C-alpha cells in the first residue's frame, strides 16, 4: 500500500509507492507481460491466446482499493506498434473502453478523480514497449485539476471553452480539426510540441460524449500522434493525459486531451531544470506558432 504525505512548502501531496521500485523494466518481446499467453510459454498478465483490448489491475499499483485504483489498458495483442498505428476501429473502441472505466471508477466512493494517460517512450519513463496506457483512480483530487478550476474562475466560465474560442479565432496554432474536435498548440505551451485536443462542445467527461464525438476524438488523436511520428521521422515520445470532470458529481471540467512531448529537436530533449523545478517557470526554445506550423505540416503529410 502506498503512503501519502503532504508537502507543506509545495502545498501538494506526494505518494510513496516503494513497491514499484522492482516493477518489470523494459523486458524483451519474448518476456513481455502484456502479450497474450502462448502455449508452452510462461503465463503473461493476460491468460488468453488473443484479445482485442484488455484492462487489468496493475501488479505494481500506485493506488489500490480501498484508497483508489491503478489499472493497465492494453490496446492490442500485437506487441509492436503504437496508438498511432492502431486500426481506426480499434482506436474508436478504446474511447469506449476509457469511457466504461471512467464511469465505473468515478462511481467508487474511494475515487475522487479518474486520470487516464499514456506514457510513450523511454524518454518519459515507459517501462513496457507493448502499446498500452494506464488509469489511476485518485483517492484525492490532484492539484492540476484545482488549477483548471481556478482558471475557470479567472476567466469567468469554462476556461477550456474560452481558450478554444481564442484558438479558433486566431487559427494560428490549430494543427488539426474535424466536426467535433480541434487540436492546437496552446498559446502558452510549456513543451515544444505540447498539443491540446479539445471537444468543440462542452462535455464534462467521456460519459457525456455522443458516439459520433468519440469516433471523431479517436480520429483526431490518431492524426496528432501520426503527425508526431512524422515530425522527426522517428517514434515520438509523449505523455498523453485525458482531462475530465472530477468524480464527485460536479460538472466542472471540459473533456480534452493534453500531450506533453519532451523532444525539442529530433535528438534533443527539453529538460525540467533549475528554472522549471526551482522557480516553476518554463523556459522555451521555440514559439508555439512555429511548432504548430511544423506539426500542422507533418499531420497533413500523413493524412
Amino acid at each position: 500500500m502506498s503512503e501519502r504525505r503532504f508537502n507543506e512548502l509545495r502545498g501538494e501531496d506526494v505518494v510513496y509507492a516503494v513497491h514499484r521500485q522492482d516493477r518489470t523494466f523494459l523486458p524483451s518481446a519474448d518476456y513481455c507481460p502484456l502479450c497474450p499467453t502462448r502455449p508452452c510459454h510462461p503465463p503473461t498478465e493476460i491468460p488468453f491466446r488473443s484479445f482485442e483490448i484488455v484492462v487489468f489491475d496493475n501488479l505494481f499499483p500506485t493506488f489500490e482499493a480501498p484508497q483508489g485504483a491503478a489499472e493497465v489498458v492494453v490496446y492490442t495483442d500485437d506487441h509492436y506498434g503504437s496508438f498511432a498505428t492502431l486500426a481506426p476501429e480499434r482506436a474508436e473502441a478504446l474511447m469506449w473502453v476509457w469511457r466504461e472505466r471512467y464511469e465505473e471508477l468515478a462511481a467508487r466512493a474511494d475515487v475522487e478523480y479518474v486520470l487516464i494517460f499514456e506514457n510513450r517512450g523511454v524518454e518519459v519513463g515507459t517501462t513496457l514497449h507493448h502499446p498500452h496506457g494506464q488509469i489511476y483512480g485518485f483517492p484525492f483530487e490532484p492539484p492540476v485539476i484545482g488549477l483548471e478550476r481556478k482558471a475557470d474562475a479567472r476567466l469567468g466560465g469554462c476556461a477550456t471553452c474560452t481558450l478554444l474560442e481564442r484558438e479558433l479565432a486566431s487559427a494560428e496554432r490549430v494543427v488539426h480539426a474535424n466536426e467535433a474536435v480541434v487540436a492546437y498548440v496552446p498559446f502558452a505551451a510549456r513543451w515544444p510540441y505540447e498539443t491540446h485536443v479539445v471537444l468543440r462542445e462542452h462535455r464534462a467527461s467521456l460519459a457525456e460524449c455522443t458516439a459520433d464525438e468519440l469516433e471523431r476524438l479517436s480520429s483526431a488523436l490518431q492524426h496528432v500522434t501520426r503527425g508526431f511520428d512524422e515530425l522527426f521521422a522517428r517514434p515520438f515520445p509523449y505523455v498523453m493525459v485525458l482531462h475530465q470532470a472530477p468524480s464527485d458529481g460536479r460538472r466542472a471540467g471540459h473533456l480534452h486531451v493534453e500531450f506533453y512531448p519532451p523532444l525539442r529537436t529530433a535528438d534533443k530533449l527539453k529538460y525540467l531544470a533549475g528554472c522549471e523545478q526551482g522557480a516553476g517557470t518554463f523556459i522555451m526554445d521555440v514559439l508555439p506558432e512555429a511548432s504548430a506550423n511544423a506539426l500542422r505540416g507533418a499531420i497533413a503529410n500523413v493524412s
Partner: protein
Amino acid sequence: MAALPPDPPEPAHEPDEQPLERFGPLVLRRLVKEDGRSLISFSWTGRNAGGKS
C-alpha cells in the same frame, strides 16, 4: 455387463462460457486472476472477448 460410470460434471464456468456484459458497442468479460486482481476483456467485434483465437 457393468454400468458405465457417469460422465464427469461439467465445470461450472468454462472460460468462454462466463456471462458477458455489454457497454455501448463493446462486449465485456470480467475475470478474477489467481492473485485476486481483476481483468476485463473488451471486444467490439463480439468475436473475441478473450480466450478464443
